């Protein structure tokens, strides 16, 4: 009995995704060489997130998975967002901002 419901992604589409991922890698390196200030990291993470989405949707067949499996995938990132988001809200709000040199107050111990 053959499993007809299984979605088969064509090699052509896989090749397109491969090309997009390689292009993304090239772009992220080029983007890093330009000084964009705080936007460097935003751009780098945006490109990485797009690359990740392509891998999940096509290489990992996320686009063709059952709704149940898709829910599990999304839940993983939902929990990750809670972990990162809530911890960083705390870290950025609780401690005093680092001085302009980037040193935290604790560094006085090192210098003494």
């Amino acid at each position, binding site marked *: 009995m053959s499993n007809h419901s299984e979605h088969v992604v064509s090699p052509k589409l896989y090749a397109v995704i491969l090309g997009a991922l390689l292009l993304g890698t090239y772009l992220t390196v080029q983007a890093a060489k330009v*000084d964009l200030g705080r936007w460097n990291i935003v751009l780098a993470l945006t490109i990485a997130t797009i690359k990740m989405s392509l891998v999940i949707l096509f*290489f990992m067949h996320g686009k063709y998975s059952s709704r149940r499996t898709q829910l*599990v995938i999304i839940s993983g990132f939902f929990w990750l967002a809670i972990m990162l988001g809530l911890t960083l809200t705390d870290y950025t709000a609780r401690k005093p901002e680092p001085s302009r040199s980037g040193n935290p107050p604790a*560094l006085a111990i090192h*210098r003494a």
Partner: protein
Amino acid sequence: MHRTGELYGQYKTLEQQKETATLGMWIFLVTEILFFGGLFLTYTINRHQFPTAFGVGGNMLSLPLGFANTVVLIASSFTMAMSVWSAQTSKKKLVPLFLIATLVLGTVFLGVKVVEYKQKFDHHIVPGRNFDVTYCAKNPASVCGLTEKDHEDEIKEVREGVEAEGGEIALNAHAQLYFSLYFGMTGLHALHMIVGAGLLLWLILESRKGRFDANYNTPVENIGLYWHFVDIVWIFLFPLLYLINRHLA
């Protein structure tokens, strides 16, 4: 474990049986996302705290090697996807070929990683008692195998780092934090690659017996999911570790 893809009693259809396996694999991968997530969180907090030291550390990594490895790993994800396609379309002869290609690319990645780690020992940037992020700047260019220009950039950058961090001790302390995270994160990633290589080896042996086809390919599909996940981790590690301050160099 079912060897031929027959229907087990607790399932109504083969389709349901397969979906259950995929779902289980994804639940495992969700725990992996959170596992690596903790390290990414640690990285973020410390980079936020010590941006200069992280920049100095990041620029000491080899961009050509990191870039090459990213390309190699992405290519291995493609060959892995192609082996899943070969199994799904019952091209039984192609399955082991694409798996072998994946294993070879994975091994190349680990080999390049070994070369990179060796460099870190030579440059005294492995956390521990011999750690000295100023080692390459203080010694002649030839000691770290740098070109004159790279050596000058290195000296300039380390000097700026010392200034910004308020002393060499502070710069070393915080650069050491960066390299601890570098080895921790790339090390855990490499460990996943080694596990993946072992799984691939098993898949290659099984697929040569012609076990995987359109009826039954769950192991190829699920080990593929694992391999792609490890690729995704690297997609984030590469910009976060290698590309922090490249516009300075």
